[in-house]
């Protein structure tokens, strides 16, 4: 007879990994199920020349219509879209980017690590749109304080209320001259800048920072290739008691038992699982309030003119930085609410397709601009709106017979206005810094492409308008917790992983305490 675990954790990425890390070290006996196989970093990757790949680096046409991040080098790490289908209205494409491996997306994330502030947690108080979170910054700050050293986050303290400082490996590196000029250009109009804040180290993933300690405690059993079909419910108590899953390789149907279930399968997979289980939705909002962060990639591509023709002096290029949100902090300044952030970088050669040239003239211009580029990407807040949602598509199932998601998401006028403002503002700042603007645009990537999907299982104090309470605990089923980005009420313009990690740690400590006191 199989054991009954204290906690079943579904998913092994940032949120599931942090749950296992926290619970197992507190003596809680955990079972973790992940839908994918484990990665063997020695066996599963090797160096290859691009011309030795079957498609010369282009990739097999049509293999990943929604994963612009995929290359022929990385094609085997992304979830197969045919095995794992989803649907959307053709007029509203959604790019759902997934990885099904032990460690999840934490294996390949960009590592940007920003705290949210009360401009996000208490957003409704600032502009009367949407809803506040059931927690404030002060509730999460102690957990941010512990996650940052664990992930070895580097950064520079600035004292900005919209971007709280953290426990950083101090980044006191000297900016290159081109970065200094851009920073000065921004400061002249009151736009703040800072260094990037990133998890450092050779590798910064659940599989090297979280799961090893959990396993070493002896309190974690990790099972890979376990595709969870649904969470099971004890009909007598109404409490969840485990999950049905299918072994990915053999298709064998299995059931695992636990006293508590914590779901961290990634934002939309977690909500899909709850919808397919028919639980935690007395409010009717499960699946609703889907949002992410929009990206305008290479919103401005500029040239540092003194670097043309390789004439730049040492120290003029390299490095970069970050513009935190600066719009609508104290007053309503523009024709949109909320704000956007910007990543900027110095160096690199502009893409040849930007130049309206070909042949020798093109090559001459590309050579002239070699390593003279200055580029930036804007990342803006997408408003959480009820009508952007996911639901089960009754006509489509995945390779395991599990009903697939239909995703309905569309940007509003607010996001479009924000993107245009970002383009105009950054164009102006580049010119003020003395750069040549090569191209600019305000075209947002399709919803989902930023891989920052959030919401659909949101927290709140009111069980009628939210799915989870302030501990990421289901209002309806007290031994069910959802600890990933689906729990977000709003997201700001900051990358969400650091907040997901902090929320999961906080919720997991609550679960451990409740188990100890016999409340779960």
């Amino acid at each position, binding site marked *: 007879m199989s054991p009954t675990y204290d906690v079943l954790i579904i998913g092994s990425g940032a949120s599931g990994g942090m749950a296992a890390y926290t619970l197992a070290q507190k003596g809680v006996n955990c079972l973790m199920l992940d839908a994918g196989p484990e990665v063997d970093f020695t066996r599963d990757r090797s*160096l290859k020349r691009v011309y030795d790949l079957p498609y*010369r680096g282009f990739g097999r046409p049509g293999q990943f219509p929604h994963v612009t991040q995929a290359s022929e080098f990385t094609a085997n*790490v992304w979830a197969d879209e045919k095995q794992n289908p989803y649907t959307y209205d053709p007029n509203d494409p959604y790019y759902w980017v997934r990885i099904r491996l032990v460690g999840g997306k934490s294996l390949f994330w960009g590592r940007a690590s920003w705290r949210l502030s009360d401009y996000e947690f208490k957003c409704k108080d600032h502009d009367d749109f949407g809803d506040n979170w059931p927690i404030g910054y002060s509730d999460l700050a102690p957990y941010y304080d512990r996650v940052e050293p664990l992930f070895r986050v580097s950064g520079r303290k600035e004292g900005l209320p919209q971007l709280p400082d953290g426990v950083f490996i101090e980044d006191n590196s000297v900016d290159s001259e081109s970065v200094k000029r851009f920073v000065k250009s921004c400061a002249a109009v009151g736009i703040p800048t800072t260094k990037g804040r990133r998890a450092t180290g050779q590798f910064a993933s659940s599989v090297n920072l979280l799961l090893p300690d959990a396993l070493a405690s002896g309190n974690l059993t990790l099972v890979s290739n376990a595709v969870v079909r649904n969470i099971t419910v004890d009909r007598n108590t109404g409490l969840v008691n485990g999950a049905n899953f299918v072994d990915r390789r053999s298709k064998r149907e299995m059931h695992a038992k636990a006293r508590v279930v914590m779901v961290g399968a990634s934002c939309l997979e977690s909500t899909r699982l709850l919808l397919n289980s028919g639980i935690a939705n007395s409010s009717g909002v499960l699946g609703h309030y889907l949002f992410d962060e929009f990206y305008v990639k290479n919103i401005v591509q500029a040239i540092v003119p003194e670097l043309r023709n390789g004439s730049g002096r040492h120290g003029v290029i390299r490095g970069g930085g970050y513009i935190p949100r600066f719009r609508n902090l104290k007053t309503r300044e523009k024709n949109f609410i909320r704000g956007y952030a910007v990543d900027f970088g110095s160096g690199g050669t502009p893409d040849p397709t930007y*130049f309206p040239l070909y042949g020798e003239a093109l090559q001459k211009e590309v050579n002239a601009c070699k390593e003279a580029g200055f580029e930036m990407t804007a990342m803006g807040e997408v408003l959480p709106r009820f009508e952007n949602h996911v639901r089960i598509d009754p006509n489509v199932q995945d390779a395991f017979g599990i009903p697939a998601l239909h995703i309905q998401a569309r940007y509003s006028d607010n996001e479009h206005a924000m993107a245009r403002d970002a383009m105009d503002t950054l164009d102006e700042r580049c010119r003020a810094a003395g750069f040549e603007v090569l191209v600019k645009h305000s075209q947002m990537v399709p919803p989902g492409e930023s891989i920052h999907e959030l919401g659909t299982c949101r927290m709140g104090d009111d069980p009628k308008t939210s799915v989870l309470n302030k501990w990421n605990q289901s209002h309806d089923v007290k031994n069910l917790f959802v600890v990933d980005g689906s729990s977000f009420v709003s997201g700001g313009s900051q990358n969400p992983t650091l907040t997901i990690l902090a929320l999961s740690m906080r919720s997991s400590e609550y679960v451990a305490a409740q188990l100890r006191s016999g409340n779960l």
Partner: protein
Amino acid sequence: MSGAEQQPATPKAARAPIDETPTLQIATTDSAAETVEHYFSESQFQVLERLSDIIAPPISGVPGALAAGVPAFLDFLTSQSSAHIQNLYRDGLDALNHQAQSRFKTDFKGTTASQADEILAPLRKPWTYEAPAEPLQAFLVLAKGQILQGTVNSREWISVVSKRDRRASGLGTYWHTID
């Protein structure tokens, strides 16, 4: 046999004992054979060759698109692409021939450099994020990007340029099937 055993004149690579699992040295297809073009018609392929040479000519000893085998590669790639891309290519290549005939009474392959420049005027319009609405311009923008990428990703281009620039090695971390 009398006397000492005869040894081979040139020692071969050490052979693994027959009871070990061998790792055989396998050549890539491109290094041993040529693509058999089959997708584009002969006239379309000739236009693609001329266009490739115009967009990415050999410069200062660096191989261009023709030496990199780009037309044959794009014939293969397009054959596996979506109907939208296939139509864009076929119609675009036909359009270049049509324009050459109507303007200069020759096919695109036979145009002079200045005549080809006139026909390729859409390529000198400013870059836009969205693909251009006009089909010929959309084709030319797509083809330009693919011809350039096909060239710089080729063995021929990399083997020359990597000797001058270590960043042009074409090396990347390849992920095998994980199971």
